[in-house]
């Protein structure tokens, strides 16, 4: 027991002290951007063998809070403009848009067909909490459509909503269209009519003057980047 403890503390000390290889550029991005951005980073790293892009994927509000607390980021891409404004960044570019969609388990146990079905209190429906961007977007859809979703849980992120639908714990959820595009075959999307849907605009900005950060943002905004974004289920500005 004592030896095990000694070994454990040694490992802890070693791992704490070993120098981390510092990546060339650090990108803070909204969780929904993960599949597309990882693909783009791979492209960039392939092009230039020495380039290295490190990611921090999290909720947009979290990312901004981390930067305000002093976290080092070279690029920030959030899921809505208000979080970007909160970060106090002047030069931002809108590079993608995202709409909301209903997501159900592949076998659709609740037999959900339209948005108004989500008002059924017998169905287990999960959405994002109004405090996070995907939840704010859901509220806008509710307002525009007049459908009062009978919510059973307000999650902190799209990933949590998706997880609860994927596991069959919930009958339906409301997430970004791009999330369903990359979620795999366990779930499927049911469109929300364009007339009542809401469009989230994704801004991106370079913080500081790192040349590789600039190149990453240029790639995102390029034709190639737009194609990747489209394949990941995003709309384009």
């Amino acid at each position, binding site marked *: 027991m004592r030896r095990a403890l000694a070994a454990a503390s040694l490992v802890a000390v070693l791992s704490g002290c070993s120098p981390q290889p510092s990546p060339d550029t650090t990108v803070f991005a909204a969780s929904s951007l993960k599949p597309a951005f990882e693909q783009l980073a791979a492209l960039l790293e392939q092009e230039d063998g020495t380039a290295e892009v490190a990611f921090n994927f999290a*909720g947009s*509000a*979290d990312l901004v*809070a981390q930067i305000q607390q002093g976290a080092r980021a070279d690029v920030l891409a959030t899921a809505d403009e208000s979080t970007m404004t909160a970060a106090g960044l002047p030069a931002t570019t809108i590079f993608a848009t995202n709409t909301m969609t209903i997501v159900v388990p592949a076998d659709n146990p609740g037999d959900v067909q339209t948005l108004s079905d989500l008002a059924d209190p017998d169905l*287990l429906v*999960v959405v994002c*909490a109004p*405090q*996070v961007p995907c939840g704010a977007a859901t509220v806008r859809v509710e307002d525009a459509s007049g459908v009062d979703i009978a*919510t*059973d*849980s*307000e*999650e*902190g992120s799209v990933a*949590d909503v998706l*997880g*609860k639908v994927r*596991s*069959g*714990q*919930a009958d339906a959820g409301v997430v970004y269209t791009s999330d369903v595009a990359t979620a795999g075959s366990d779930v499927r999307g049911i469109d929300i009519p364009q007339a009542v849907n809401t469009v989230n605009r994704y801004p991106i900005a370079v913080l500081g003057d790192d040349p590789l950060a600039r190149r990453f943002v240029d790639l995102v905004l390029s034709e190639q980047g737009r194609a990747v974004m489209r394949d990941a289920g995003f709309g384009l500005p």
Partner: protein
Amino acid sequence: MRDLLPRWIYLPAAVGAVFVALPVLAMFSSVSWRTLPELITSEASVSALLLSLRTSATATLLCLLVGIPMAMVLARSRSRLVTALRPVVLLPLVLPPVVAGIALLYTFGRRGLLGSTFEAFGVQIAFSTTAVVLAQTFVALPFLVLSLEGALRTSGVSYEAVAASLGASPTLTLRRVTLPTVAPAIAAGAVLAFARALGEFGATITFAGSLQGITRTMPLEIYLQRETDPDAAIALSIVLVLVAVAVIGIAARRVRT
């Protein structure tokens, strides 16, 4: 009494104490005291606090119901099977709470091992307060079991042996000898379990969801408030710290006397 400790030991002990106390002090120092009353009496805050107290109390009760027998079996049984099972029973202690939540999901979830059975009986666990209590009980149980088992091992079986030799049945011995002997340990274990249940976050958010008044306990409310209103998150954290300190303080006094 002369101090038997070597003097140097106070240095690392002080470093440890500062390491634990400083973050809490830092939090207190960043509270906006002016808006504090307003922040902690909002409907969402009060509802979260009441839910937390209610679910943690229920979880503690469940822990006592099954935890006391578990500790007794673990401390007294000589069966190899019990020895082999001991690490399993204590697993929640070392399991990351999120993992505990996933494990519970695959057990009591609607598509889990037992979930469909519960659904068949019309019991719905998904996104209910029951799910919160289950998550809290799961993570808090080992705290009670471990502290009580230790006390039982320390107290030994000599009094029980005497009671048995005088003709007392095992149940009578348990009631009149064992339980009174370890009562302080039961109380201490229950307090630990309650405190752990109060702070439960990972398993709850993974397994139970988050809805005001139903599943959104204090830690979940704090996590959510942090998104938009860091001041409110800190204010609620202070309340949670004070509740936890009060519970531990009261219990420590009880156990000592």
